C-alpha cells in the first residue's frame, strides 16, 4: 500500500505555518509603510519596492547556488526586505538598498543556513553595516511633506534625536526639545527612516501582532518601558541635559525596533522570562547609546548586541519542568 503514509504521531497539525506568520507580520507593517509613503512620497515607495524585490531575488539566487530548496514563497525574504526598507532613509539611492538587501540576505541569513538559523536580525545587520560604511547616505533624511503625489525635495531634514545630539554638542543643553511638538512623531510628521516616523501606525501593527498571538507583549512593553524609565530618571535629575521620556519613546527607531525588530522570533529568546531580560537589556543599551554615545540612535545596535546574548539567555531561562514544583 504505497499510497498509505506512515509517520510518527501526531497526525494532525495546526494551520498556522511559517508563511502564515510571515504574512501576518507583513500585514502589521503596512500602516507604518503607508505613513512613510504618505510623508515621503514616491522615493519611499521606490525604496520599499527595490528592497523587497531585491531581497527575494537574492534569496532565490543564493539558495539555488547553494543547492538548497528555494523558499522565497515562505515570505521571510519579503519581510526582511520590507523591514530593511523601513530602516532606511526614504531618499536612499537604489544601490544602497540593493547592497543592504545583499548583506541582509546573504550575510545575515543564508550563510547561517537560512531562516531559523541566523543569530542576528538580518535587516539590522544590513542597516548597521550600511550606517557604518555609508554614514552620509544613511543620515540624509528627506523633509517630510504630507502630500502623496508631490515628490519631496531633497532638502535634508534632521531627525529629532540627531537634532538633540547636535544641540548637546554645540550648546551643551537641549532647549531645542521644547520646540518640538510631540504630536508630530506620534503621527509621523518628522524626519527619520522611512518606516519609523509614525509611532501611531507602528503601535497599530504591534497590537495586531499581539492580538494574533504572533508576538508576545513582553518585548515591546519591557523594551519601551525600560527606555521610558531610564530616560525619565535622568530627565527628572536634569531636564536641561536630558530630553523627556515621551520624546524618547516616540522618536527614532524605538517603536519600530521594539515592536518589529526585537520581537523577531528567530533572534529573540524563546521563553517569556528570557524575553523580558532581553528587552530590558535592549532598553538599557539604547538609552546608554542615546544619552552618552557617539551615535544619536542606539536601537539597532542595542538589538544586535542583545541578539548575541540570546543563546546565553535561553540557557539561563529554561522553564521549570512539570513535577518538580509541588
Amino acid at each position: 500500500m504505497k499510497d498509505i503514509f506512515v509517520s510518527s504521531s501526531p497526525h494532525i497539525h495546526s494551520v498556522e505555518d511559517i508563511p502564515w506568520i510571515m504574512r501576518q507580520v507583513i500585514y502589521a507593517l503596512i500602516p507604518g509603510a503607508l505613513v512613510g509613503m504618505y510623508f515621503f512620497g514616491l522615493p519611499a515607495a521606490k525604496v520599499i519596492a527595490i528592497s523587497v524585490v531585491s531581497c527575494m531575488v537574492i534569496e532565490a539566487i543564493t539558495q539555488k547556488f547553494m543547492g538548497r530548496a528555494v523558499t522565497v514563497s515562505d515570505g521571510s525574504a519579503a519581510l526582511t526586505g520590507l523591514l530593511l526598507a523601513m530602516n532606511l532613509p526614504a531618499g536612499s539611492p537604489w544601490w544602497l538598498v540593493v547592497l543592504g538587501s545583499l548583506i541582509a540576505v546573504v550575510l545575515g541569513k543564508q550563510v547561517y543556513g537560512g531562516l531559523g538559523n541566523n543569530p542576528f536580525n538580518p535587516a539590522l545587520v544590513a542597516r548597521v553595516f550600511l550606517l557604518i560604511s555609508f554614514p552620509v547616505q544613511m543620515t540624509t533624511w528627506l523633509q517630510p511633506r504630507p502630500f502623496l503625489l508631490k515628490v519631496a525635495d531633497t532638502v535634508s531634514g534632521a531627525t529629532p534625536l540627531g537634532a538633540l545630539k547636535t544641540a548637546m554638542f554645540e550648546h551643551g543643553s537641549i532647549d531645542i526639545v521644547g520646540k518640538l511638538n510631540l504630536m508630530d512623531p506620534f503621527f509621523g510628521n518628522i524626519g527619520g527612516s522611512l518606516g519609523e516616523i509614525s509611532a501611531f501606525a507602528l503601535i497599530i501593527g504591534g497590537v495586531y501582532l499581539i492580538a494574533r498571538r504572533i508576538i508576545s507583549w513582553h518585548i515591546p512593553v519591557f523594551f519601551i518601558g525600560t527606555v521610558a524609565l531610564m530616560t525619565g530618571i535622568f530627565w527628572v535629575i536634569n531636564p536641561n541635559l536630558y530630553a523627556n521620556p515621551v520624546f524618547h519613546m516616540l522618536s527614532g527607531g524605538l517603536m519600530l525596533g521594539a515592536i518589529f525588530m526585537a520581537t523577531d522570533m528567530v533572534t529573540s529568546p524563546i521563553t517569556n522570562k528570557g524575553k523580558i531580560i532581553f528587552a530590558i537589556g535592549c532598553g538599557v543599551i539604547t538609552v546608554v547609546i542615546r544619552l552618552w554615545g557617539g551615535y544619536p540612535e542606539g536601537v539597532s545596535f542595542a538589538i544586535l548586541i542583545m541578539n548575541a546574548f540570546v543563546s546565553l539567555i535561553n540557557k539561563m531561562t529554561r522553564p521549570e519542568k512539570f513535577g518538580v514544583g509541588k
Partner: protein
Amino acid sequence: MKTFKGGIHPPENKILVKDNAIVELPLSKVFFVPTQQHLGAPAKPVVNTGDTVKRGQVLTEPMGFVSAAVHAPTSGTVKEITKRVHPVTGLLAPYIIIEADGKDEWAPGLPLERDPFSMTAKELLNIIRLSGIVGMGGATFPTHVKLSPPKDKPIHTFIINGAECEPYLAADYRLMLEQPERIIDGARVVMKVLGLDSAIMAIEANKPDAIRLMQEKTPPEIKVEPMKVKYPQGAEKHLIDALTGRQVPSGGLPMDVGALVHNAGTVAAIWDACALGIPLIERITSVTGQGINQPKNIKVRIGTPLKEVFEFCGGLNDAAKIIFGGPMMGIAQYCEDVPVMKGTSGILVLTEQETNLNSYQSCIACGRCIEACPMRLVPSMLSRLGERSMWKEALDFNLLDCMECGSCTYVCPANRPIVHFVKYLKTLQREAKAKGKEA
C-alpha cells in the same frame, strides 16, 4: 473549570461519530491475537496449533507480575502460532491465529453471576489479574499492577478518566452514555479493592449530556467533575494536577502522590470480569475520520482483522493514513491485516487534507512549543538535538520527562516532527543504557 498549564486546542472533529450508537461488529472468520497486548513482560502461549478453544479461554500465561494474559475472543481452533507484523512496533511479533467455528461458544461456566461486593479485595485483585485487563485508553499498562500499590504509598484519590481529550474519538463518550452502570459499578469495585470511600469522575466539558447523565446515576461517593476542554486533559499526570493540585514528581508514578487514574473503558472491563467472570475479549472503539465511508462506534472482539472493520464501516475513501488510537498519539498502520487490540481506543482513517504530510523547516524559535508543552520542557531544543542524535545533551533538557503527547508538534509552524525526534533520542538512550549494562 479545572485544568492544567500548557496544552492546545485542536479542532475536535468528534461530530463525525459522536452521535452514532454503539453497534456490534459481526463475528470474523479468523482472529489474529497478538500475545503481547500490554506493556511489560511478554506472555507465553498455553495452547498449541490444532487445539480447540472456547470463547473466554486462556490463550497465554503472563510471565511475571507486570504482564497480562490474553483470552480467546471466540470459539474455534488454533490454526497457527506464528510471527506477524505487530501494530505497535511495526516489527514481527508472535500471534495466535484462531479460526472461528461460528458457534461462538463460551468456555465452561461463563458467563457466571456473582456479587463482587461479597468478595475480598484480594480475591477481586486476583480476578482482575487473571482477566488480562490493561489500560484501555491506549497505554495498555496491566491494571492489577496499578491496583497493587506498595504499602508506603497508599492511594487516597481514585480518578475515573472520561476526559477523552483526543480529537475525533468518542468511544468512551458512547460508553458513558449507553452503559453508565458498567462504569459506575466497576468504579465501586475498584474502590472496594483499594478500600476507598470516594472517587472522582473527570469528563471534559464538551460532553454535557454525559456529565448530566453521570451526575444523575452516580452514588454520592463518586463526584463528577467537568474538565476544561483542552488537550491533553486526559493525560494521567495532568488530570491529577488539575483535580488535586498535586504534581506527580518527575520520573514518578501517580501513586507517588497517592492517586490512581483508570480509563472509563478499563473500569467497565473490571466490572465484567468481577461480576460476570468475562475476561477482556472485546472493546468499544470509534472508527472515524474523513477517509472512512460510514464512521461508527463499534463493539469489537480483540483480534478482529482491520479489513473486517473497514468492510463493516463501508470501506475506505481517499485514505492517506490509518491510525490506531487518536490523531495526537495514535500509531500509524500501513496494512489491513493488523488486528484490533486491547489498547485500540480508536481506528482513524485520515485523508490527505486532514493529516499532515509536508516537509519540515528549521526551528524559528517562536516558542509556541514551550507554551504548549504540558510537561514544561523545551521541545524546540529536543528536536534540534534529535537532528544531531545528541541524546546525552537531550537528557539535560529532560528528554525522559516527555510523554510524547504531540502538543508541540501540533503547533510548530515549521512543521518539525518533534515527537519523532524525541522517540528517536529515547531509542538512542535506551540502546546506550542496554549496552552499558552488557559491558
